[in-house]
């Protein structure tokens, strides 16, 4: 796990230092994106034959040659890679082998579904997880705390897809309260399709969102608890007790604030894993998002879609990492001394 900063910064970082740090991190992020791009391009170029995937059985050798030439597949590797990156930056990832549509259109069409699902479940996980974590840290011996910890162990041991199946069996098949697949009715707001404004859309959202939230919630409970326990052991908390400050003030003002700094940054990093686990949730509930698109691409070896998804996810991760790094820098004075 990432060791978090313990102290809140007293001073604003000096402009030049900050600039140096941020530009270094930015440079590293660009390198990472180029490497991921290289992997994606390698996939694109060398896994399966791109020409074979575009033409039919009865295409002559000359036509294939012409297509290879017109696609630029005879150019040097570095030129092809450069062209791939150039196109990717403009959002052009070619055509899906399976669906015969531009990949960028497919992703734009699926993106709102995944984002709405991820946001709702992230909210649920935070709203429940943080208070549970604080409670278990403050009252470790109480019955509720033991219950929460047992629940969180079960949450870690229950695979996401099984949670989804159990929910479907109970609320979908036995009780018939909630729809078991799809997004329900959606409303188009420009290019964005939203399920937030219809009853069936909201009902369809409940089970996938819970499924996705449970794993994140257990992580957050354990994380908040561990950080809080650590903070409660520190000298400044003991000193605050010795000064006779009220426990309420110590726990919720001093300890909580120091706990939340690392927790918030790590939760930021969790956004990425929500997207990854959305693949599973979307597959269980046939939720028409990017994850479902990706898993279908993996099983059908639809390389352009895989490459585009990889780049998109890498981009999200890199941006979040960059923001978190900058937050660390702003918040933790020790980092500034190092750089």
């Amino acid at each position, binding site marked *: 796990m990432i060791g978090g900063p313990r102290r809140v910064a007293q001073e604003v970082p000096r402009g030049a230092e900050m600039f140096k740090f941020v530009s270094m991190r930015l440079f590293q992020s660009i390198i*990472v994106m180029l*490497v991921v791009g290289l992997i994606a391009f390698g*996939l694109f170029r060398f*896994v*399966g034959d791109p020409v074979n995937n575009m033409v039919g059985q009865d295409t002559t050798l000359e036509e294939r040659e012409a297509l290879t030439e017109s696609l630029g597949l005879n150019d040097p590797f570095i030129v092809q890679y450069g062209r791939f990156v150039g196109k990717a930056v403009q959002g052009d990832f070619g055509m899906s082998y399976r669906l015969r549509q531009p990949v960028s259109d497919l992703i734009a069409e699926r993106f709102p579904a995944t984002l709405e699902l991820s946001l709702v479940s992230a909210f649920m996980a935070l709203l429940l997880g943080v208070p549970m974590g604080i409670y278990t840290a403050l009252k470790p011996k109480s019955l509720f705390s033991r219950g929460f910890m047992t629940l969180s*162990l*079960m949450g*870690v*041991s*229950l*695979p*996401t*897809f*099984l949670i989804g*199946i*159990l929910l*479907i*069996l109970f609320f*979908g*098949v036995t009780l018939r309260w909630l729809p*078991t697949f799809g997004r329900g009715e959606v409303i188009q707001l420009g290019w964005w399709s939203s399920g937030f404004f219809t009853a069936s859309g909201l009902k369809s959202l409940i089970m996938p969102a819970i499924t996705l939230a449970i794993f994140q919630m257990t992580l957050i409970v354990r994380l908040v608890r561990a950080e809080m326990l650590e903070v409660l052991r520190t000298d400044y908390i003991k000193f605050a007790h010795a000064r006779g400050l009220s426990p309420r003030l110590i726990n919720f003002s001093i300890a909580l604030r120091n706990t939340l700094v690392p927790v918030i940054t790590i939760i930021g*990093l969790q956004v*990425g*894993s929500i997207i*990854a*686990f959305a*693949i*599973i949730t979307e*597959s269980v509930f046939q939720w028409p998002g990017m994850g479902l698109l*990706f*898993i279908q*691409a*993996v*099983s059908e*070896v639809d*390389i352009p879609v*895989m490459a585009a998804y*990889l780049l998109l*996810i*890498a981009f999200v*991760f890199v941006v979040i*990492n960059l923001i978190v790094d900058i937050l660390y820098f702003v918040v933790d004075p020790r980092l500034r001394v190092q750089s």
Partner: protein
Amino acid sequence: MSDMTEQQPSFLTRLRDSDLWWSFIHSPGAIIASVLTVMIVAGALFAGLVAPHDPFDLATVDLFDALLPPAWEAEGNSSYLLGTDDQGRDVFSTILYGSRISLIVGFASVALAAVIGITVGLIAGYSGGILDSFLMRVADIQLSFPAILIALLIDGVARGILPREAHDEVAVYVLVVAIGLSFWVQYARTVRSSVMVERNKEYVQAGQVIGLPNWIILIRHILPNVLGPVLVIATIQLALAIITEATLSFLGVGVPPTSPSLGTLIRIGNDYLFSGEWWITIFPGVALVVLVLSVNILGDWLRDALNPKLR
């Protein structure tokens, strides 16, 4: 628990007198968990003897017995304790055989991850310098992506490279490599930080002074001293690896239905959930959860037992 190289006062006496044993017999959770784990592992290992039916022998499988509910329900058949699946295979037997594949993939991928991770950690921690920062930078980047995503990706690439007909035959190996390659980072980081502490101790300097080659110092002398935390990580990762395997198989990119793992069984049963045949999905699911939960409890116990500071 085989990291004890010397065994002067017999192994059993040492085990009985150890703190680890004391803490084990005083935590009921760990005892129950280990009993359950041993039962599942034994059932999987001796599936051929324990299982009432051979689900993969087409001669004994009868389609007329398909979709029978568990034995205690009205239409159940007493020879199929947990009912049968869509092809008339005994669910209890497929679970035993399925756990075998889940466990094989779990153990093998954890072993692969441990070998890669320990090697990288030893080299990075002992050599330091550019090699160290390069390896750790790679580890950082990989750690910022969830393991399941990396496993999916490696799986997808392997599917692309290999011919379509070979997918089913090599599926298990592909899974082991995919999961192994996505889990090595934790070992590498832990081992590296322990090695950096050990590196400056006197016994290492003594070894260097008498001219032992670096790899001997690393493997014979440093490695045994950094294995404690590795054991804890390996236990927790075994649970994660089993879940990851089940997830990939459930998503349809893991073990094929012809020799199903627990995840594949759940996937097969999922199609029958809506028509009320819940037992095909739920029983393999319960087996999976019991297995993973037991391993997780053992891992938690081991971590606390080896690290008294936490108590």
